[in-house]
């Protein structure tokens, strides 16, 4: 009996004390917050300062009974550091900026060339921003990407994010990474990060944005780009190709093309050290189906199919080798070959790792591609 009174007393005291002590410090209503969906960094006029543009949604105009006003606003602020710029918002915005729903982080090319690590620290250290925001390098000014352009989503940042995620699933020829992936690669001694580049075309109402190519970095500095086929080469190597179209020429005399739709792909890198030589073998095994045929060859024949498979393998091989060549020319190990060596030859790598950028270009890359064409979709023979 006495025991139970005690508990009640304690609960009462607990409640009283929680109320007494919590002046509700962290209490912030949803309608005190400005939900940030995207951030863009540009060089401010003062070369020491950062120009930070933030996209904030206006929920009032978005909901089911929403009004007709703009669905988002872009707010600019400057500061010597990211955090200072964030604080400076308070002088500009009627609500406190709230970062957990940030979906993209855009950097202008010039900032990317100087290095983006200082900006990323905020996204990793601070508990608030989401570390899964996509990193985008803008061809022109970063803030322009947050301006309105033709899209279905209604909010530019959302549209950009959807584009990147769709692109991965449907095309797989431009690599992208989020803040954590970028930071992991940047932090690692034997791997370098990549990101997507988006460019703006047209003006005013005609304005549209498109995913252009893959940016490759050395440490945190942008040093080059991979075009689309090199981009897919890169993705083949790191086993991230999900889908895509491989266009091969029809066997025979005509120049007609056949589109092969990728169904399945799996790749592995196998490092080997023989003496002083570093070798790496990329094993790709993939399956595809014929999605489209422009010519009129009967594809149901066994040897035709085999030759198609060979052509397909050649295309993949070329893409891979192009990507490797580009990276080796730029001396930046975006593929994580270093990591692969470290896992297999930790002892040898201890000496090599220090001068990895010298060893990396010397790696001999070979491929082994198991290419197969499984189906011909619903057609077995061409229309003609």
């Amino acid at each position, binding site marked *: 009996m*006495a025991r139970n009174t005690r508990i009640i*007393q304690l609960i009462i*005291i607990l409640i009283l*004390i929680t109320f*007494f*002590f919590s002046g509700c410090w962290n209490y912030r209503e949803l309608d005190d917050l400005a939900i940030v969906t995207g951030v863009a960094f540009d060089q401010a006029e003062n070369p020491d300062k950062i120009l930070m543009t933030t996209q904030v949604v206006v929920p009032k105009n978005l909901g089911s009974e929403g009004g007709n006003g703009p669905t988002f606003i872009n707010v600019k602020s400057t500061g010597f550091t990211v955090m200072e710029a964030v604080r400076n918002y308070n002088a500009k915005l009627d609500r406190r900026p709230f970062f957990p729903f940030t979906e993209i982080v855009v950097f202008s090319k010039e900032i990317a060339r100087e290095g983006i690590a200082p900006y990323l620290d905020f996204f990793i250290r601070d508990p608030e921003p989401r570390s899964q925001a996509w990193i985008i390098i803008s061809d022109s000014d970063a803030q322009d990407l947050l301006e309105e352009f033709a899209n279905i989503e209604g909010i530019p940042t959302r549209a950009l994010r959807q584009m990147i995620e769709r692109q991965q699933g449907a095309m797989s020829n431009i690599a992208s990474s989020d803040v954590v992936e970028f930071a992991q690669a940047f932090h690692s001694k034997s791997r370098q990060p990549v990101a997507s580049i988006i460019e703006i075309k047209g003006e005013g109402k005609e304005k549209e944005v498109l995913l252009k190519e893959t940016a490759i970095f050395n440490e945190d500095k942008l040093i080059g780009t991979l075009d689309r086929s090199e981009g897919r080469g890169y993705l083949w190597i790191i086993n991230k190709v999900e889908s895509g179209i491989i266009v091969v020429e029809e066997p025979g005399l005509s120049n007609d093309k056949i589109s092969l739709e990728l169904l399945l792909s799996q790749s592995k890198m196998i490092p080997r050290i023989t003496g002083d030589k570093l070798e790496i073998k990329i094993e790709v095994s993939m399956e595809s189906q014929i999605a489209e045929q422009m010519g009129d060859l009967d594809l149901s024949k066994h040897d035709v199919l085999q030759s198609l498979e060979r052509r397909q393998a050649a295309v993949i091989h070329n893409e891979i080798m192009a990507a490797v060549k580009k990276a080796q020319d730029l001396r930046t190990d975006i593929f994580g070959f270093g990591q692969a060596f470290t896992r297999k030859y930790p002892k040898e790598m201890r000496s090599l790792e220090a001068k990895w950028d010298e060893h990396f270009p010397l790696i001999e890359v070979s491929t082994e591609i198991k290419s197969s064409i499984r189906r011909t979709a619903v057609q077995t023979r061409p229309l003609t």
Partner: protein
Amino acid sequence: MIIVGYIFALIGIILFEIPTLILNKSWWEMAVFLGLTGFAFLLGLLMILQVNIPNPVYLINKTVEYFFDLVPI
């Protein structure tokens, strides 16, 4: 403000414990309770008033570091 709350909390604790102790006539327990509470209260009050109190952990740090120097690892 904090001090007022603090004193209220203290009074609460005393009111919470004392009746049972009186009913059971456990005087020694009461003495121990009051002594400990008094000490804790004083310590807390000093901390609220931001008086510097010697930190026992520094002592521990110093001692262990002394042994570090003694035994080079």
